[in-house]
């Protein structure tokens, strides 16, 4: 039995590319197909302004999805991320309006969200990894805490009169909106890191089989902590893009933001059960759901339908994932 191949081993029909693009390729085609349909219905869709604005507007979701992918791939979830972004946005905004003339406060306004995000991630990670509370419970609790904190600090007042320096998302180097740069660069860094670093590999291993990872000498706690902290950092960066989009910051948690981010990941092929999925996939997932929303908007569909569509989308993708997993576990033993 020296030969390593045998006739009963048919190579998998699924081609394995270096970046594991299979799901990603499908997403690209779906996005293109949907855009073509939308363009056919309403030619306005393809106007370069629309494409550019659409990408720019969803960039912060794709940026948050970078960290969310890590958390979900590690076998956890973060429900609190939407409320966290809301909270960090107001903190950042309050710092920015504190002394509009002083560059120090502006720098603080930019630095605070990623740093505080990392801190919040550390708290989430600690509760999950060390106190062994299920992630969904921990982050649901954190969601409420952030929501309460937000209302207490703003007392419902809109933050306006933001200084001229607090307009990151409105910048356009080389004619391309700044958020798109952030989205692309962070996605590439995240993707390379998840694919080639030991920590990235360990995140997949912990999400795929916690016990096997532990018995291989991987510190599951450290890995889960890391995933949550990085998720906090990307949530903080996403906050900056979100808060500087307009000249005001709403004193409320952006409704359903966490669901949008999680949907983006799941639609992008990140298994909700952990262990698989890529950051490029999550970015394409963000673009896809936004394309679907644009299509619905361009065809004058009610916004309540849009919400329902998002729900259907997440259910279908989770279902597909479950079915695929089940088939795999039957084909194995």
């Amino acid at each position, binding site marked *: *039995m020296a030969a390593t191949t045998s006739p009963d081993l048919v*190579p998998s029909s699924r081609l394995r590319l270096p970046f594991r693009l299979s799901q990603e390729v499908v997403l690209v085609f779906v996005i293109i197909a949907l855009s073509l349909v939308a363009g056919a219905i309403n030619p306005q869709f393809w106007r370069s302004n629309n494409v550019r604005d659409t990408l720019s507007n969803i960039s912060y979701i794709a940026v948050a999805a970078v960290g969310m992918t890590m958390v979900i791939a590690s076998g956890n979830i973060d429900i609190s991320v939407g409320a966290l972004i809301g909270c960090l946005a107001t903190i950042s905004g309050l710092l920015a309006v504190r002394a509009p003339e002083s560059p120090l406060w502006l720098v603080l306004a930019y630095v605070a969200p990623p740093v505080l995000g990392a801190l919040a991630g550390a708290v989430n990670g600690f509760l999950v990894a060390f106190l062994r509370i299920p992630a969904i419970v921990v982050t649901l609790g954190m969601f409420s805490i952030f929501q309460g904190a937000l209302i207490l600090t703003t007392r419902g007042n809109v933050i306006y009169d933001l200084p001229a320096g607090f307009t990151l998302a409105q910048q356009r180097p080389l004619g391309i909106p700044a958020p798109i740069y952030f989205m692309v660069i962070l996605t590439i860094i995240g993707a390379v890191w998840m694919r*080639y670093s030991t*920590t990235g*590999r360990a995140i997949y291993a912990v999400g*795929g089989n916690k016990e096997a990872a532990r018995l291989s000498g991987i*510190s599951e706690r450290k890995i889960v902590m890391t995933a949550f902290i990085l998720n906090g950092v990307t949530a903080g960066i996403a906050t900056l893009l979100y808060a500087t989009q307009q000249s005001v910051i709403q004193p409320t948690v952006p409704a359903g933001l966490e669901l949008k981010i999680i949907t983006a990941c799941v639609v992008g092929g990140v298994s909700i059960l952990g*262990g698989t999925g890529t950051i490029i996939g999550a970015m394409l997932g963000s673009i896809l759901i936004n394309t679907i929303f644009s299509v619905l908007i361009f065809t004058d569909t009610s916004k309540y339908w849009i919400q329902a569509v998002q729900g259907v989308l997440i259910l279908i993708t989770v279902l597909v994932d479950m079915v695929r997993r089940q088939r795999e576990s039957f084909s*194995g*033993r």
Partner: protein
Amino acid sequence: MTDQPILQLAHISKRFPGVQALKDVQFDVRPGEVHALLGENGAGKSTLIKIISGVHKPDEGTLMLDGSPAAFSSPREAQQRGIATIYQELSLYPELTVAENIFIGHAPRRKVGPFDVLDWRAMNTRAGETLASLNIHDLDVRSKIGTLSVGKRQRVEIAKALSQNARILIMDEPTAALTEADVERLFEIVRLLRMRGVGVVYISHRLNEVFELADRVTVLRDGQYVATRQVKDVTERDLIGMMVGRTIDELFPKLPSTPGEVVLEVKNLSRPPITRDISFQVRAGEIVGLAGLVGSGRSELAQVIFGIAPAHAGEIRLNGRAVKIKSPADAINLGIAYVPEDRGTQGLVRQMVIRENVSLAMLREMSRMTFIKNRAEGQAARRAIEQLSIRAYGPEMVVNKLSGGNQQKVVVSKWLARQPKLLIMDEPTRGVDVGAKAEIHRLISELATRGMAILMISSELPEILGMSDRVLVMREGRIAAEFPREQCTQETIGAAMMAANMAVNLEADPSTKDASSEPSASVAEGAR
């Protein structure tokens, strides 16, 4: 006993991916008999009873119930046709009462006005009657299952089966978890059932139970039918011969090796309540077999040494140096490797490819500046595939698609890449087909000749006997006996494993252990 069989199976074959679980097997059950089903691990007993009870469908073969062909599409259908199964893990609801459990799914009902409601009084009365018919009078039908002992729960299971008019009762290792008194009660009940014309299929690895209870015995080996005999016509030795079927020497290609330095030394290692005061040594180039019944603390001992459940007291020395092992990471860094009992849940990340699994235990060594060295990783995977003859189309194959034996080879190769000093293997060939089994055995033997110290836990006595240079027998969390290779036989080791359960007089004097072929060699087998 010439009655027409209630159930008759012929030419039954069943294949799972990678394993031919059953091949051309026949089996029958007559009314009023106890028919024992014997075989080693992986012989196909479980698959056979799952076919009888409607869990699996056979790929080939016929199943006749009362002389006419039958096919069960579900366990429920088999139950309705009178076939009840009592598995090792009992399937009762702990929060419900005895009566509710007995009548779950077919509770007596009565009319109250327009409503069809449960008739609690009738249910309790009839549950009491069913129990009484089995000579069980010490059970309150209103007590919750969760409060009962294992033996009592099992009696409730039997009563439940009878309440559904079972004509065939399949019992899968019913005595595995019972105390001696409960075993006696069970035997009484089984004899009662036999008198009432129920056909009992009895699976056990305790040969003495087969002789005490069964009328006929059928032996399976490697998924094939060996023979069916009247119990009164066979001896213990016959049965073991039929089960093993070949001499141990040809089955296990053990290479001679000369033990070197002491690699692992364990002194008074304890982690109550399971691991108690364990002391032993393993030398370089030596394979030490760790035998014992399920629950004797073998796996737990391995977990203590590997730092999964660190020791509370005692000393571990590696190459003469005292070491502290608080986590698997500590153990790995000290050069210990551990192939766990359940590769699916503990050994592999199944959705990962071979390459990723092989490098999992040495990510740090295989990386530069936190980035994994791609080429080194690919090479390690290809080398593993070649060295262990893993049947795969390449390093990028998802391990989930491999057969059980090849998955196990991936687990082993993960550790070999690290070149450990001490390799601990828990059930290295469980659920692996015969061919892959021999390959894994050859590999273990080769590793030992290259100077690796190996601690091998196994529930299969032939494997222990065939592979070990020395055998440690565990019982109730302690090392109960130790045998050099020359003194190892089914009988000596079997007796040492069972002593506490079977006969207390074997406890103290090692000479009795060696001399006795009594009480009953047992082919111990792990709970699946």
